[in-house]
């Protein structure tokens, strides 16, 4: 069955009739399915970005473009360099070589905070909850344009109260959607692993970014909740937000992404729409594996050959 047409339990008005999706699909329709391909309306363009750690090359990207307004998935084996690429693009790490632009402006060498302010906001794979602040405070911190964040305005509450109210309303809405409403006044440090992931994502969305980069947003999140959150991500596309996410959950990738980029050993090895990329034999061999659609309860899987095959695949992935 088609994942798209499947009814989603939580009411998400944008889920199916997505004008944004149509637009993006139309834009991407003519784009060739090859690594490093040019896109009609790229928001991020990066050239020859490399990052070495000692002797190993974690990232070695010749050319990559992210389509504006699209939901792009970045997949690839463990250690492929996805997170490192995120770190480089968002200014949390410094590349060995390379330049990139965001909305036409060069962002290479720009500090992380400035990158975020320019509209490119990311989340972390290993969550960074602000432990001794409450959930709602975490959320408020994500907002932008709060005049009270400047030292002198902070001293005159009337100057920032109104904005604070707006922020709080927005934060509470997001919390409800991310099933964190009940935790509003708890310390973020007391959240469970999955709840932290959710908070991290919700907090990033507070700033209404032009582009949001999610690093494995759904790892550790309950599937039922994942499903309801996908609606939210799709809704982001409707508002014109560009989404780039790393994810190992293929159902999610298949369900919401307009475009998939595959990384391996630091390089871009394949690009294309999800159905096609996932049918690509190389991707299946190196990343998805032969059993990704198999019921693992099958005893025959316990045969030694299967293990060997899996190991071979894992090695392939490594190579």
């Amino acid at each position, binding site marked *: 069955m088609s994942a798209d047409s499947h009814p989603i339990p939580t009411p998400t008005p944008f889920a199916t009739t997505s004008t944004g999706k149509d637009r993006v699909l139309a834009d991407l329709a003519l784009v060739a399915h090859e690594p490093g391909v040019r896109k009609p309306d790229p928001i991020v363009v990066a050239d020859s970005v490399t990052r070495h750690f000692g002797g190993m090359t974690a990232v070695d990207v010749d050319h990559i473009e992210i389509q504006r307004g699209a939901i792009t998935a970045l997949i690839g084996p463990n250690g492929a360099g996805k*997170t490192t690429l*995120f*770190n480089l693009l968002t200014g*949390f*790490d410094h590349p060995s070589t390379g330049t990139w632009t965001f909305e036409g402006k060069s962002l290479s060498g720009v500090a992380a905070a400035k990158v975020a302010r320019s509209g490119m906001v990311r989340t*972390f*794979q*290993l969550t960074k909850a602000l432990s001794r602040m409450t959930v709602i405070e975490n959320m408020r911190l994500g907002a932008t344009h709060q005049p009270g964040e400047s030292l002198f305005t902070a001293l005159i509450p009337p100057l920032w109260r109104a904005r604070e109210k707006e922020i709080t309303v927005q934060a509470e809405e997001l919390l409800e959607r991310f099933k964190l409403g009940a935790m509003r006044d708890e310390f973020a440090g007391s959240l469970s692993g999955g709840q932290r992931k959710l908070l991290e994502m919700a907090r990033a969305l507070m700033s209404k970014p032009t582009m949001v980069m999610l*690093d494995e947003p759904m790892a550790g999140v309950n599937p039922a909740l994942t499903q309801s959150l996908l609606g939210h991500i799709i809704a982001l596309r409707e508002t014109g937000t560009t989404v780039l996410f790393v994810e190992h959950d293929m159902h999610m990738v298949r369900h919401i992404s307009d475009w998939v980029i595959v990384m391996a050993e630091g390089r871009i090895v394949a690009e294309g729409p999800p159905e096609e990329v996932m049918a690509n034999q190389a991707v299946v061999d190196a990343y998805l594996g032969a059993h990704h659609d198999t019921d693992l309860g099958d005893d025959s899987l316990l045969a030694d050959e299967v293990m060997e095959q899996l190991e071979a695949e894992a090695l392939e992935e490594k190579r």
Partner: protein
Amino acid sequence: MDRSPTAHRVLLATLFALLALAGAVLPVGAAQAAEQVCVADASTGCINGTIKTAAGAPAVGIVLTVAGSDGEHIATTGADGRWSVAVTAAGEYTVSLDETTLPAGETLRDPSKNPRTVTAEVGNTTGALFPLGAPTAAPAPSDGATSADGTTGADAAVGTPTGSESGGGVSWLRVGQQATSGLIFGILLALASVGLSLIYGTTGLSNFAHGEQVTLGGILAYVGCQTLGLPLLVSGIIAVAIAAASGWFQDAVLWHPLRRRRVGTTQQMIVTIGLSMALQYSYQYFFGGGALRIVTENPTMLSLGQIRVTLHSLISVIIAVLVLAGVAYFLLKTRIGRATRAVSDNPALAAASGINVEGVIRMVWTLGAGLAGLGGVLMGLYLNATSWNMGGALLLLMFAAVTLGGLGAAFGALVGSLVIGLVVEMSSLVIPSDMRYAGALLILILVLLLRPQGILGRAERIG
């Protein structure tokens, strides 16, 4: 040490020179010149001086004239080079030296100061000096003058072999000497800082009472040697054992319960400040505020080439190096040693790996306190005395060393200590001595700017 024959000769020559000098200055020599020597009393004042040749030998038979309100007095230097006149009225006196009576080849160092005017008081002694030597500003006798006279470098100077180099400025010998002291100090400091670093590394606690652990070692050794009269070795071993036990005990009654109650490390840090206060003043209560000499014997000096070290410090350094090597082996090669790093990274996971976390921490406290105690004993010997605040005074240097080397990296603390030791002892070559700690701290800041993670620390990955 293979150069010891030379060293011995230098030492012997020095001793002879010393004896000669002592003979000249000691009251024994004064006896024969007794009839000349003026003693100031209610009605007389004295003007006196001693004249020595450039080589430092007494200059005999020099004639001086002292003229003033109560007339003219003539004095001649005696066998010890001394002269003196008694005056009966206070006021200004002109002292002139008859240059013709100078021994052959001697000149006044500063001829313009002859004659010179002094103010004498009744009941007081006033000096008037006429230094002999080459007419330069250089205060020390030059090499040429020394060898011309055939004596060793230990002439006029108070018997130090360093005199042979041109004095005052920075000589290589002085650099070497201070570098040696720096290394010794650094290695001994390392004993203390490695313990501090271990405790910080495993528990995240900045232990401001660590200095008192160091003091404890020193004071226990003092008690052993001075109060109980035990031999140094025995009291040293007992001191280290008790110091280590105190670490065990402290963790058992204080830090373990605090950790169990999840008291944060900053709060624990304040507890260490309180503990440090309580301990410092307890030491003061029992042992007073003065310096305590662990052993009263004067240190035996050894010469390594031209560099002097005391036997005590040499042995101390050897002990310290052995112990530090042992600690290094323990940390790197033993299971428990590795476990300390695991505990410092992630105590819960360490427990999940089957490590007895509390046991490891207890062991670290014991080891850290034991090392500090040993550091205290050796430091007390090296510094010639211990006192109630010896450790407290060193604490900042220890922290600097630990940070410099990379927080929590035990070897970093070792490297950091050596750097700090060298900087502290050598910075007085270039900056005022009372600012040398400032110099060490400045170096610390600079190193941190270049290598924020410390010398041996590693940068962390984000994301």
